[in-house]
């Protein structure tokens, strides 16, 4: 028993020490960044295991300073996935700048983008709780408020459907990883082989969701396009 306890304690201590080391690395990298030694800072940030929002954010900054704009965009997008609202505001500004530098126009007013941003800001847990709350209310009304059942149902059923769809959309977003095109120009094929017809050309930093994989090929879906593309032309976020 004592041995088991000792073993568990050792593992805990080792993991704590390791975490402390990485925090020190993060702070050291911040110092390098402040001293404008961006490459050193980037290398240090990159050495951190299980990077968090701040690490990805700062890595993006370093990459941007080193004129690696696509890398910067990738890092910022990774940071955005788990960022808080305040962090997302800063990241959005950086991402916008990166897109501008890469010569891409960002559609700020599309519904899909608005919806995506809204989904990004809501955690899956929150959406699950929201949906379940309305779901329970719906059944509660069915059981206990029989007199005004129709009125309640007319309100609650659309809300439940909306919450359900949002939750499904969130699941789908999480299920299908997003990737950016990392080459200046690449082709989108009808099937997972270069003998298939080319559907369209894609450009640097175009964003797609990976829906399927087949060897070295990925089936991707964009806002208006869908097709197969070589995996090594994409960088996953």
């Amino acid at each position, binding site marked *: 028993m004592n041995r088991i306890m000792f073993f568990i304690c050792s593992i805990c201590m080792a993991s704590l020490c390791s975490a402390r080391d990485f925090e020190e690395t993060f702070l050291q990298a*911040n110092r390098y960044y402040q001293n404008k030694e961006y490459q050193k800072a980037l290398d240090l940030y990159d050495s951190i295991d*299980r*990077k*968090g929002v701040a690490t990805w954010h700062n890595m993006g900054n370093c990459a941007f*300073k080193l004129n690696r704009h696509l890398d910067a965009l990738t890092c910022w997008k990774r940071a955005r996935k788990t960022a808080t609202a305040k962090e997302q505001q*800063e990241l959005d*500004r950086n991402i916008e700048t990166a897109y501008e530098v890469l010569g891409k126009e960002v559609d700020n007013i599309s519904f899909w983008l608005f919806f995506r941003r809204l989904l990004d800001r809501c*955690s*899956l847990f929150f959406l*699950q709780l929201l949906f379940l709350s309305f779901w329970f209310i719906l059944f509660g009304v069915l059981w206990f408020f029989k007199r005004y059942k129709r009125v309640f149902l007319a309100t609650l059923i659309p809300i439940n459907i909306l919450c359900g769809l949002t939750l499904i959309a969130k699941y789908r977003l999480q299920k299908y990883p997003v990737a950016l095109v990392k080459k200046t120009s690449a082709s989108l094929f009808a099937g997972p082989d270069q003998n298939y017809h080319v559907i369209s050309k894609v450009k640097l930093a175009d964003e797609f969701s990976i829906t399927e994989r087949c060897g070295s090929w990925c089936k991707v879906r964009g806002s208006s396009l869908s097709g197969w593309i070589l995996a090594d032309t994409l960088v996953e976020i």
Partner: protein
Amino acid sequence: MIKIKTIINTSVMLVCFLFVFCVQANVQVHMRVLDMHGYELEQVQVGKPFTVEIAVQGVENNVADPTIKGARSFDMHRTSYQMSTMNNRSTVKYLYATQSDKQGVYSLGPAVVQNGNKVVESNILKIKVGHQEIPQKKSESKSNDTMFLKFSVDNEQVVAGQRLEGTITFYTSMPDVSITSVTDPAIDGFVRLDKAKPRQGVEHINGKQYSYAQWRWKFFPKEPGRLTIPSCYVDVAYRAEDDYFSAFASFFQARQKRERIFSDALTINVKALPEYSGIVDAVGQFKNFTATVNQAVAREGDGIVVSLSIDGDSDIDNLNLELQNLPNVFKSYSSKQHVEKGNKRDQLTRKTFEFIVQGMEAGEWELPEQKFTYYDVYDEQYKTLTTSPLILKILSQPSKKKYVPPSNDFSTKTAIDMDGDVGSVFALNTYGHWHEIPERKMPGWLFMVLFFAPLGIWFSGALRRTIVRYKKWRAPQAQWRSAFKIARKKLKLARKENNFSAIYRLFVELFTLRCSVKDCVISQEMTKKILTDGGLSEEQVCEWEEFFNTISAFVFYNTEGGQGQEGLFDQADKWIKVLEDIL
């Protein structure tokens, strides 16, 4: 006797003569040139100090300092003043450290002394200033081979602006010599490289072992021509050799001699640079001329730091560069300059010039190549280093308001921005989580359980209600079907308990279930009719009536079952079988 008188007279006359001579002697001033050790010189060396001694003899009272004519040709300053008095007559010696930086023959003197109302003049000196120091009497020259100072340069033929490295080495064969100070050569622009600690070592010269201390100097001659670098000196202290009471003296630190050791002066030939039509930025040896920017993309009006850096062996401290051919859309300001000295001796020094450049118009602009022209002292030709052009992308200022972190404590921790612009695009995130925080989400199974729970509850309720309804609907048929089975079970139980009244009830119930009527409706007449309709004979009906009356009596008349009536159970069993066939 005569002889004695003669001697006495002669002695008296001599004494009188001496007395008269002493009393009546005039003040005399004499001037001579000595080296720094006090030996007379015939020729002095360019740049090396020597001593001019002015001795004023026969002074009764105090005498004013002498005035020396022709002193302007030299660098003179008084170093000491000595006075000795005998028979109320004093001899005053003035010593002047003198130096000449130009070759030639110069007149010095006379030195004029005002003694009371009389003006006394000294002799006039003809001082030869040459490349070497020549003593007046060679036998008198002191060859101080125990301590000497050597001054040399790495190159005596240089061009204007070229780096010159001089070495001053103090050699001594004596033990316990301490250097109290070392003086820089009295010329502008000399920089001592090893100011903190000189290099030390041991060297053999003419078979004699010397310890040495060595200092290095750096100098960049600016003007062409013959340049004399004057001698420099070190002050040393050592123990006197004739100290017989050394043990006692050293206790009080007495009898320690101090001496100033001078080096020779040096003359170097500085050539003018060859003619060149363009601008020459520097003289020396250079490489790695690069231009970099801290960010290739910026918004209108934002500062971009453009750095020009060059590695070189030259007067890099005084080197200055400007940005050339900057497009009109940019504004530039000189910012910082850094000098990174190479760690190793032969490593070049790097100088970086920073400029703040502001793009005033959106677009992609080229910062043209920068040129640096220098005279290469090794290849003896002009060379030009060129940087690569830089592309700068200037973005227009966004119309929307920039995000500024709120002014709560968050802002104090926030944005440590590179360029000092809080809330700008590239603010460092120092407040967020550096490590991954797993996203909180409900496990799929729990979500599904919670999702299906109300559905399940609702469904089970509905199912239960349906089953109840179904059972209600199906109950008569089931009872009709199982009426005989129930009757047999009850009969078996009644037989076991010897309960005769139960036989009546089981038959009433049997009729009730099979005929779908209420039990109150069942009467003997009714059962008779059912059996008759069922096709039983009259005898069998009579037999039934008898049997039914018997079992009814147990219920209605509380008749006790007795011996011999056990056959009723068998009859009941028989009638159940009969009824099973007809009902």
